[in-house]
């Protein structure tokens, strides 16, 4: 998380830390046996990582204490239309992890709600992104072992698309934007999600509850002026989520 703050305990209880082959990723608890995350953190060149390779940590905000209590994976369900062998197409970047044992919820562990079917992502509405990904101090990217969060506004889809087009002038192999994605961030930069936050929640608040509006997916650099973070639009996948959970 770039430009954010440390999250006090029990404030983002749905936050999950995934450790896959030594790589950090984020996730969020959506039910007592289900974790939602980004597909790209569970797929390595079109191959789903084995269950044993995925460590799931829940409940605390400090990585060094989290590591003592992984929960075990029962099965991994990547969206069937996710196809991103070269990390150039993040469309349908969503996956579900089923846990072997049910989690008992408490102050430090609580599921985040799923969006309503008619949920809208109004431009400018603030969402809260969190994760154990890279952060920045004194213009230097550093690793953090503390959960951080940052409030980011939803960016108009066209604005985001323009920023990606602009980025393609100076960079090679910039992925494309689809309607299954939305962008969030500040045009002036300085606050953003970053590597290691992928799969984590972009939480929106409907006034009384937080719901999972988006999943940290990708972006051009982190926190730079004129670039935005790109998030999977969860409301487009409610049917698949419910179907996958019911069938499994």
């Amino acid at each position, binding site marked *: 998380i770039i430009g954010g*703050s440390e*999250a*006090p*305990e*029990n*404030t*983002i*209880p*749905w936050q999950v830390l995934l450790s896959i082959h030594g790589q950090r990723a984020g996730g969020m608890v*959506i*039910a*007592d046996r289900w974790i939602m995350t980004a597909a790209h953190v569970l797929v390595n060149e079109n191959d789903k990582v084995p269950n044993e390779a995925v460590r799931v940590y829940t409940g605390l905000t400090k990585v060094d204490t989290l590591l003592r209590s992984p929960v075990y994976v029962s099965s991994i369900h990547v969206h069937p239309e996710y196809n991103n062998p070269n990390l150039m197409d993040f469309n349908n970047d969503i996956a579900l992890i089923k846990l072997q044992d049910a989690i*008992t*919820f*408490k*102050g430090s562990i*609580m*599921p*985040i*709600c*799923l969006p309503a079917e008619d949920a809208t992502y109004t431009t400018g509405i603030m969402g*809260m992104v969190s994760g154990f990904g890279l952060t920045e101090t004194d213009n230097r990217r550093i690793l953090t072992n503390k959960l951080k*969060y940052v409030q980011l506004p939803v960016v108009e889809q066209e604005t985001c698309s323009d920023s990606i087009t602009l980025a393609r002038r100076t960079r090679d192999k910039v992925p494309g934007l689809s309607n299954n994605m939305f962008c969030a961030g500040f045009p002036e930069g300085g606050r953003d999600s970053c590597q290691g936050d992928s799969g984590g929640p972009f*939480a929106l608040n409907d006034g*009384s*509850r*937080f*719901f999972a509006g988006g999943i940290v997916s990708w972006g051009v650099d982190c926190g730079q002026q004129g670039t935005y973070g790109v998030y999977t639009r969860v409301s487009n996948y409610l049917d698949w989520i419910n179907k996958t959970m019911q069938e499994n």
Partner: protein
Amino acid sequence: CIQLPDSEPVMLGEIQSPQYPQPYPPNLQRQWDISVPEGYQIQLTFTHLDIEASEGCHYDALTVLYDDKVLGKFCGYENSEVGHHPGTQPILSPGSRLSLIFQTDENNPERHQNVGFSAQYQAIDIDECSAPEPADGSGPLCSHICLNILGSYLCACHHGYQLRSDQRTCVLSCPGGIFDEPEGHLFSPGYPDTPPRAVSCQYVISVDPGFVVNLNFTDNFHIESVDTEEGPDCVYHWLQVTIPGKEPTKLCGRKSPGLIVTNSNTITLDYHTDHIGLSNGWSLDYTTHRVMCPFSGSVANGRVTPTLTKYLYRDYIYVRCDPGYKLMMDGQEIKSFSTMCQSNGQWHLPLPECHIIDCGEPKPLLNGGVTFLSGSQNQYRSLVQYHCNEPFYSLFGGENVTFACEADRKWRSNHDIVVHPTCLPVCGQPTKLIPAYQR
């Protein structure tokens, strides 16, 4: 009934002399033995007889015998001047046998060719009843009534008498025997007419177990007694009443015993008189009623049906428990209960008890718990309330759902549902919000 012989008896037939209707040969000695079943006699009728006529049937003759008794010796022909022709009158044998002997000499007269005889016989039933009384002083064949039947006879007796084992003489019958109807009338021989002497009659009243007999003697009671200081003594005449399990009682005198409650289903009455003295006899009506079973009246927390003032043999009672209670017998639960009043006046099963039912422990609730609101031990009408571990879980269906232990032994909610409650996770509401006072 007459036992029939193995083969069909000969009841009629025909006998003819040899070579009939041709002349019979000389030097004959031929005999026919006819027999019919006992009880019949033989009637022999000649249809033709033409035997050499001679004085005293000296030369040729047909002799008819019953055993050794000659019933007739015949020869000649119809209207012959000599000989003895039987004519058309039948010959009747005294018994069931008859023999015919046909004898001829060596000569036959040349003028007249005698053809012999032809006769028919048939069995005729003997009317034994019309036979005269034997002269040996043994008395008539039947002392009362003689009934002639084919081949035999039967003796019968006038009303009130019975045939002795000799099948011919009659004696006054005892109106005793076995009485197994639920009610009846008994009386001494000849009652109320002049009684016979030397009576020994037994009356057995035997009704089904479960019934008891009451004897009700009529007022007209007279059995000769000998008066003593202690009262009438039943020395020579008596009516002995025997009830199983009790000492027999002898009754006599002129005072009717009236009603005797025996409490038994079997009573034996032995009436005895001797050759001397006179007892006018007695009569009684007996009735029966079912034995009664004791009944305690009620079962706690249950109901006994039907409700009767008294419970008698073969009556059934049923016990049902009140809602929320179960039938228990000998520490075991039973589905239903009925018991029958037995013939010995005891119920075949003792009454059960009604114990309050138990719904068992309420199912535990994952991520929640259960609290007893009232009652205890999970018994009928106990109330429990489920709750979830708030604020992380909430009860599906709303708060304050109470379950009661119902009569069907299920915990049911106040909405009458049996579905087990569920704690649903609460989402998106952290217990602690990130402070955002800074602007």
